[in-house]
């Protein structure tokens, strides 16, 4: 497996005692797969992504990327955050180059790489623009280009389209599929949007809440990957199955919240 998560547990200590956020998570992702982890709030999906990114360390268990154990954050795992994280004082080109600059790569090489990936995300024309001049969808495309410029082994995405309006989000879905097809990226994305997950993924991990566990692993096989497929009964079956999984746990989660 290219990205492995083995027996991962994550506990947080709170005033009421130890809170188990993630319980015995096991996942395996092959090179070039597009994987979504879907869960309601409380499923620990953001926490899971942070363990993979190395921004946080698991209580026990391990994350391995390409055979190497994750011990901290690094550019081999590019990350796109839910909130816009472009550097507001840098233009689009400088933002895209910044990771390479941090890694000590020379000016010429990083300019070329950044320009290449800006072209991949279709924003070459905006290289001189400041982030505040871009729409939300464009900002996330720059964030993707910035992560890709380091040529990561896996692209991690934390609800990257959650803050976008419906139409922009749909456009971004098609953009992601197109990007994935062209670059053979390995993508691990978390979302609470079931349709988004079904439309984009090869495979979905449905997470249960409190504590976060893998409830089911679903292989997605769709006849096509365009918006028409959303009217297809296969698409609806996947969606309903996942909704039931999440809904069942949504109820428990709200009860737990009421108790707490």
């Amino acid at each position: 497996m290219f990205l492995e998560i083995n027996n991962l547990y994550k506990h947080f200590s709170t005033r009421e005692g130890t809170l188990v956020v993630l319980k015995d998570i096991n996942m395996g992702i092959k090179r070039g797969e597009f994987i979504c982890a879907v869960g309601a709030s409380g499923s620990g999906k953001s926490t899971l992504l942070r363990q993979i990114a190395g921004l946080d360390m698991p209580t026990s268990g391990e994350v391995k990327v390409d055979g190497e154990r994750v011990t901290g954050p690094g550019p081999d795992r590019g990350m796109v955050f839910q909130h816009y994280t472009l550097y507001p004082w840098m233009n689009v080109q400088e933002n895209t180059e910044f990771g390479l600059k941090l890694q000590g790569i020379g000016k010429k090489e990083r300019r070329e790489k950044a320009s290449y990936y800006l072209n991949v995300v279709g924003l070459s024309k905006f290289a001189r623009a400041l982030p505040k001049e871009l729409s939300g969808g464009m900002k996330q495309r720059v964030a993707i280009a910035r992560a890709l410029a380091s040529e990561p082994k896996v692209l991690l995405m934390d609800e990257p389209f959650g803050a976008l309006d419906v139409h922009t989000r749909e456009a971004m879905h098609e953009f992601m599929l197109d990007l994935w097809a062209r670059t053979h990226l390995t993508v691990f994305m978390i979302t609470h949007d079931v349709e988004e997950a079904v439309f984009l993924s090869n495979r979905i991990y449905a997470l249960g809440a409190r504590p976060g566990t893998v409830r089911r692993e679903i292989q997605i096989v769709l006849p096509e990957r365009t918006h028409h497929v959303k009217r297809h009964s296969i698409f609806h079956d996947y969606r309903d199955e996942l909704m039931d999984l999440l809904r069942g746990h949504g109820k428990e989660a709200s009860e737990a919240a009421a108790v707490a």
Partner: protein
Amino acid sequence: MTQSTGIEPSPPQSKSGFDVFWRLAEDIPKPLQTALMVTSIGLPLLLWWIVTTFGNVDPKFLPSPADVARAFGRLWSTRELLKDTVASLWRVGVGFLLAAICSIPVGVLMGSFPSIRALLEPLFGLMRYMPAPAFIPLLILYLGIGEEPKIMLIFIGVFFFNSLMVMDTVKFVPKDLIEATYTLGGDRLQTLLQVIFPYVLSGIIDACRINLAAAWQLVIVSELIAATEGLGRRISVAGRFLKTDEIFVGLIVIGVIGLVFDLLFQYLLRVSCHWASQKR
């Protein structure tokens, strides 16, 4: 968010002057704004002129604008005013610069590292509430009556406030921005110098702008007590000899220089951080 884009929702269509004047948190027409700003300075001047011209007021009590202008000419021609201004500017310049050089790194460190914050914040929080002028007797005792106590007074008055204000701007750097830098391969030093510092630069300049006003007030206070020249000294001497017109000259010069400082810093902020005009 003052940068208007031309496609703002237009307010309810009522064109009366009353409604325009009382617009809530919304831009007013440029000519009206200019007129109001001119009035802000012009009206008090006019009232001052009317009172002193028609009011039969003792010029020892309230000199007329013309008296003050004459006093200004007198002090300017003898170069006394220039000497006083330079002396005050020099003190404020040295004191403020020293305080800024020390407080900016300290503030950035306090904002970035909870350990350093825990170490320094209680002390600074306490020092901040001790009015700097209350240190004057001690400063005279320790440093004599030369330039050192005046510069030290400004330093004390600026350093603690500026450190805490810089710390606050650093605390509000979005965590995501810092973590994004880590995922791009940045280490802690790179993150501090290349992400946190540029992000808070506008906040630092603004903190300095506010604290320079405090420094400017403190230099005047320090000169009221013991000095041979300086704008504060000028005012206190003029007061002793009942030269009210010279007191007015001193006050107006102090105010104008302070305003110029403020405008300079605002300009610096616009030039260095134009990306920040729509931040957050």
